[in-house]
């Protein structure tokens, strides 16, 4: 039951060591820097130190209650990330699979639209452009 913000890469295997003991179902989500156009060199992620840790911890705790999780973990990176690098992960553990799936899906919807991170795409030519929030992410959050 923990949330972390860091610049360093994380190792999914290390995060899952001892995670969810006693659970029947463990779900993980890993977000990876994707380059759809071939023009992107890196992603830069800005965050709000202090508030970020608090928000991730709050969302994790809410999910734990709502879906009766036996364990959860959120790790989110900030700073400059190259294409192909992992951005963040969520892991959820529950007795049954549907709770674990739903909790991970729920947490992702919250993190996308309500965690204080801002992404900027850096092109091979050095140009930087802030990533716009997506209406589809707001819609996803409204499901809950």
């Amino acid at each position: 039951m923990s949330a972390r913000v860091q610049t360093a890469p994380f190792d999914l295997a290390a995060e899952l060591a001892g995670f969810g003991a006693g659970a029947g179902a463990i779900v993980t989500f890993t977000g990876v820097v994707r380059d759809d156009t071939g023009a992107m060199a890196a992603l830069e992620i800005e965050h709000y130190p202090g508030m970020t840790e608090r928000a991730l911890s709050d969302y994790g705790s809410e999910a734990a209650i709502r879906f009766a999780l036996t364990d959860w973990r959120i790790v989110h990176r900030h700073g400059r990330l190259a294409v192909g690098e992992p951005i963040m992960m969520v892991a959820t553990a529950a007795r049954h699979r549907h709770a674990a799936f739903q909790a991970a899906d729920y947490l992702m919807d919250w993190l996308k639209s309500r965690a204080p991170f801002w992404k900027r795409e850096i092109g091979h030519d050095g140009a930087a452009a802030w990533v716009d929030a997506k209406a589809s992410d707001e819609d996803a959050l409204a499901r809950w």
Partner: protein
Amino acid sequence: MTLDVLYFAWLRERIGQPRERIETDAATVRDLIADLAARDDWHAAAFADLAAVRCAVDQQLADLDAPLAGAREVAFFPPMTGG
């Protein structure tokens, strides 16, 4: 009242600084925005489209009509893009 005002992402870029300490009598976030927007062109530009501005009061997401009584830190930023 003394407030620390923080800016992130393109609001930070438009205003030209990540934070400032100000004196204000603003009762709500919306009043504070009016105060700030009146300071100079950079602030005015940052707050030109309030539909694109989100805020947190003392590190909790808040809406623009949230009261500021007792607040110490207010942050302004565009819609978040985490995950």
